[in-house]
């Protein structure tokens, strides 16, 4: 599936829910399912700055595709990170770079996030994109 298709799926999933608690439940569920990272990967370099809680992001390039692992000490950010991992992980760096994420707006996440959380989310996306840029260049 292309990034676009995965994004459409995500948006569709969210359309099933009437209220925000259900949406949060879904995000939390994704957070719980996400594998996370090893303790020794929880280092300063992997930390996404600007989040209200600690969020780590670990990239790996395999066969010209960029994979991400993520973790957080809190479940909601972890769930949000999980959505981003689902969206981007396993794609060619250039495609990650080219994609303009729309689901945040579409699922109404923006209105629900505090400015701090919104910053954190933007930082996660930025960090993923900058990894993508890095790997697209060294390729």
């Amino acid at each position, binding site marked *: 599936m292309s990034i676009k298709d995965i994004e459409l799926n995500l948006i569709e999933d969210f359309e099933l829910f009437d209220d925000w*608690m259900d949406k949060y439940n879904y995000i939390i569920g994704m957070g719980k399912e996400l594998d996370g990272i090893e303790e020794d990967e929880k280092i300063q370099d992997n930390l996404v700055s600007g989040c209200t809680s600690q969020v780590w992001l670990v990239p790996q390039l395999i066969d010209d595709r960029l994979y991400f692992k993520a973790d957080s000490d809190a479940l*909601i950010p972890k769930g949000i990170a999980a959505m981003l991992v689902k969206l981007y992980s396993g794609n060619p760096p250039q495609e990650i770079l080219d994609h303009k994420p729309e689901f945040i707006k579409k699922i109404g996440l923006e209105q629900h996030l505090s400015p701090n959380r919104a910053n954190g989310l933007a930082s996660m996306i930025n960090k993923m994109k900058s990894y993508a840029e890095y790997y697209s260049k060294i390729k």
Partner: protein
Amino acid sequence: MDITGIRKDFPELEQKVHNHKLIYFDNAATSLKPFPVIEAIEEYYSKYNSNVHRAGHKISSLATIAYENARKKVAKFINAESNDEIIFTRGTTESINFLTDILQDSILNNGDEVVLTVMEHHSNIVPWVELRNTLGIDLKIIDINDKGELDIDDFGKWFSEKTKVLSITHSSNVLGTINPLKKIIKEAKKRGVVTIVDGAQGIVHSKVDVQDIDCDFYCFSGHKIYGAMGIGVLYGKRALLEVLPPYQQGGGMIEKVSFDNVVYSSVPYKFEAGTPNVGGAIALRTAIDYIESTGLEQIIEYEKELLDYATQKLLDIEHLTIYGTAVNKDPIISFGIAGIHHYDLSTLLDGFGIAMRSGHHCAQPLMNRLEIDGTSRISFSFYNTFEEIDYFTDKIKIVKKMLI
């Protein structure tokens, strides 16, 4: 107290948050404002807004009189000996920075010691850390016991011959602990130590009598006691204010200026440079009027009931720890639930209309001391109700299920 009536005075309580009625449990961060305060601001800016002091025209006179009446009101509220002992600042943070600035080179010199406690707010830590770096003072940090109380059995551990200043919070914005100021300050005074009280929380939930406490300085913010933002108070004993240098410099605080020489005005004006926040001072006066007409004693009593009720209900929740179990406590409860991140908790509770706060509460050294990342904190005011607490604990149970 007629809580239903009181609640009608606070328009923000009518707000809907995510389709739920707002439950405002973030009072330690800032209080809501009653109608009379909002109206006083509105009236000021619609009718007699003007710059104060030097002008001779009528509305300037009205503004000046109102500003000085606000000073009088504050002086009376905290039982200062004289109106001149009240300096208007922007808030607690500025009041403390004010002091670290003017005390250096007068009271405080290289090698002197300043006593703080481990429960201080960043605003009563960072200015001192900065002063340590620039002036070369030493900081002595007083620890707490398991209940979150200061150890006051042996003041020999607090003060040394080098101690010049004690700067201590009236009560902790995290643990709620009300410190036994009178006792502590008496010991400091015995040793000739200058005493500063951070009253940001204390002023809200206690009857403050600065002459009885006998502190040299007392600082607080208007916005936490139902006043507007951008106004605060620095109370100082006149004898000290007379000899200390000014903080900021500019219009309104001088008698005579040439490029060669400056003659300052008398206390308190020499400490108020530039156009003051007249509207803020008027709002603060009106807030104090509101507190007094509601009855500070009744407020304190009722808030204590809320605290006790909420404490009981929270203790019934499994895996929940309360940080701060002092006997003498402001209506502030910090807690954590094992296995749940405090940010997740408050994010989900926000979804139910509950405004509370999670994090380090500008008290990272205290978090380090407690060996935690942060806490979830609820803090009450007299417009809160037992029903709100019930709603809150019900929702905690739901949220807990979602997160574990």
